């Protein structure tokens, strides 16, 4: 196939050297070379292959017995989105806790924690498996250093960000951190987002939330993400609010 790596012109003119240097700095598809003005065969097909993998990742479902999650001892509740297909098409249902969730949360969860971490499948369980174990440990450690109480973490199946409002009503935590799998990209299906809210209640929107996104090895690594999340939580405690009124402290 037409691989630029085997192209003598690209080698001779120094194009390949710069392309290799760029690959160290960024996962973006830069300096690809062209067929006419279009993509070369290898690049066009690589895009299709990565897209196929991402589509398949979206189709996979949360498994708390997965080796990455099993040691965490999470329990699980479900939203009103009864299955995966409904989850994708009905975000309104994914924002509401399902019928059995309230009882289970009050029985097994923590009411009134200073910091409550919740794990949601969102659109990528691969992100949950890859980032949540280390992130959860680090968040618990930093929460301890702050002297805050730690709510028992749990998972929400078929989860959308808006479920924060229902969780606020049932468990009444001070700050909630929802760790949710982002829509898979082509470079990675392992990117996680953390949505933060101060005392969420029905009617709260994204304007009342703060976000640390792109949590993965080549984006915001877990340790930095944990520090940013806790710094945001501190800012919320100081402001007794979240969302656009709270600006993220400058990079730590």
């Amino acid at each position, binding site marked *: 196939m037409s691989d630029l790596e085997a192209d003598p012109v*690209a080698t001779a003119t*120094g194009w390949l050297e710069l392309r290799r240097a760029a690959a160290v700095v960024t996962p973006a598809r830069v300096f690809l070379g062209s067929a006419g003005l279009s993509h070369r065969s290898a690049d066009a097909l690589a895009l299709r292959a990565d897209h196929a993998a991402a589509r398949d990742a*979206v189709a996979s479902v949360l498994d708390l017995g997965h080796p990455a999650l099993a040691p965490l001892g999470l329990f699980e509740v479900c939203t009103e989105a009864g299955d995966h297909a409904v989850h994708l098409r009905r975000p309104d249902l994914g924002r509401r806790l399902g019928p059995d969730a309230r009882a289970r949360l009050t029985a097994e969860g923590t009411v009134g924690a200073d910091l409550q971490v919740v794990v949601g499948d969102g659109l990528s369980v691969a992100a949950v498996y890859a980032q949540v174990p280390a992130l959860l440990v680090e968040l618990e450690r930093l929460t301890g250093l702050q002297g805050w109480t730690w709510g028992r973490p749990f998972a929400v199946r078929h989860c959308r960000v808006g479920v924060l409002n229902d969780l606020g009503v049932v468990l009444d935590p001070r700050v909630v951190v929802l760790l949710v799998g982002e829509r898979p990209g*082509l470079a990675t299906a392992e990117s996680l987002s953390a949505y933060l809210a101060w005392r969420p209640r029905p009617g709260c929107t994204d304007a009342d939330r703060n976000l640390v996104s*792109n949590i993965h090895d080549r984006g*915001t690594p877990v340790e930095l993400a944990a520090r940013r999340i806790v710094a945001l939580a501190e800012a919320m405690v100081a402001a007794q609010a979240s969302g656009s009124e709270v*600006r993220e402290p400058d990079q730590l």
Partner: protein
Amino acid sequence: MGYRATLRGERFHFADLPELLAKANEPKSGDELAGIAARSLRERVAAKLALAEVTLGELAERPVVEDELEASLLAAHDREAFAAIASSSVGELRDALLDPSSRAELALRRAAILPSMAAAVAKIMGDKDLIVAAAGLRTVTRCRNTLGEPGVFGVRIQPNHPADDPEAMLLAVLDGLLHGCGDAVIGVNPVGDSVAGVATQLGVLQRVIEVLGLPTQACVLAQVGSQLAALERGAPVDLLFASLAGTTDATASFGLSEAMLRDGREQVLASHRSRPGFVGEQVVYVETGQGSALSAGAHHGVDQLTLEARAQGYARLVDPFLVNSVVGFIGPEYLADGRQIRRAGLEDHFMGKLLGIPMGMDVCYTNHVDADQNDADDLLVLLAAAGCNYVMGVPGADDVMLSYQSTSYHDAASVRELFGLRPAPEFEAWLAGRGLWRDGRLVASSGSDLRALYDASRPALGR
């Protein structure tokens, strides 16, 4: 009251204008999610028939949403120009837009068109109608260059990086420039929204523009508050970016109000007076997208196409330099598949042009929607035919920060060549000066072109 139509002997009734507008819409999963879509194909066509009879005057008198935005839209409405078309029906407006001579007259009266009229006429147009009518409605805007003139097809360089790395951003910019992209804007979506981070990125982009002498504008697509705070700290803001939705409260859910937007625009304009290189006073960049109001729970029972037109009306209030819909970004709950995304892209572009805003498009799709790069290819070609002001240039079509696919530098360059289109004139001259553009065509670049640009740009990183 209400609206009626008879289709092949079957009678249909629509209780009010919002119901009629919603049911006349082409199929959208978002309207189904909202529970307002037509219940059968016959009912959909019946609604189109009834809507075609409604006069523009009636649409002006019956706001679909009563909010602050509606008051502002009506305050800015050119009633004098409207008087000449108020008695026309939606069907007559469609016909007039498809006839080149009457379209030319309408093109001069676009301040007379309100968003609900643009939406109504789009609903009774076929895809080709949307293309033919839009192609005859140009919108020219000026900031540090001139976009939108006949034959010009702009491209935004979108050099996003998952950790906001300045060097990575610079490399993606250089790659875009070699493909002739970057005339619309060099626009970064930042991961973080901290003021220091936004100020740093604005500084790097501006230094790239300075050291390479680029006749273009930069933008960091952060929250309005963060951009203005960075401006206050002395960071250079060429374009103030805002995400807008079709109702006052949906936009408020993004943390934004009309007053903030107007104030911000004034601050950016004032800052330009002490900076060289501006050829115009259009300093706002707006992104919109069907479904955002429903997503924010603020759609007031109105369909997503009508609300998209209102978002565009919102944009028109602040005299924007760039407006684009991010048409496939929102997900399958609002636009189910490639077919619905294609339709929405053509609608959004047409409505924007009819409202007189400089309409571009982020032709895109996410990985949880039933679409692929072929769908992006198709819509890109259709929009080039429709005279779209600009599209996105993303390295290899893969946005490694926002995790979705758009159009690539290659895609934009090959479509320019396919249609004989050019970059903005100032930018074309810059490309020609560097030997990257000759006789109306992009010149294939070599490793030495890349090396030269790379070396010339290093000072932007302080290296």
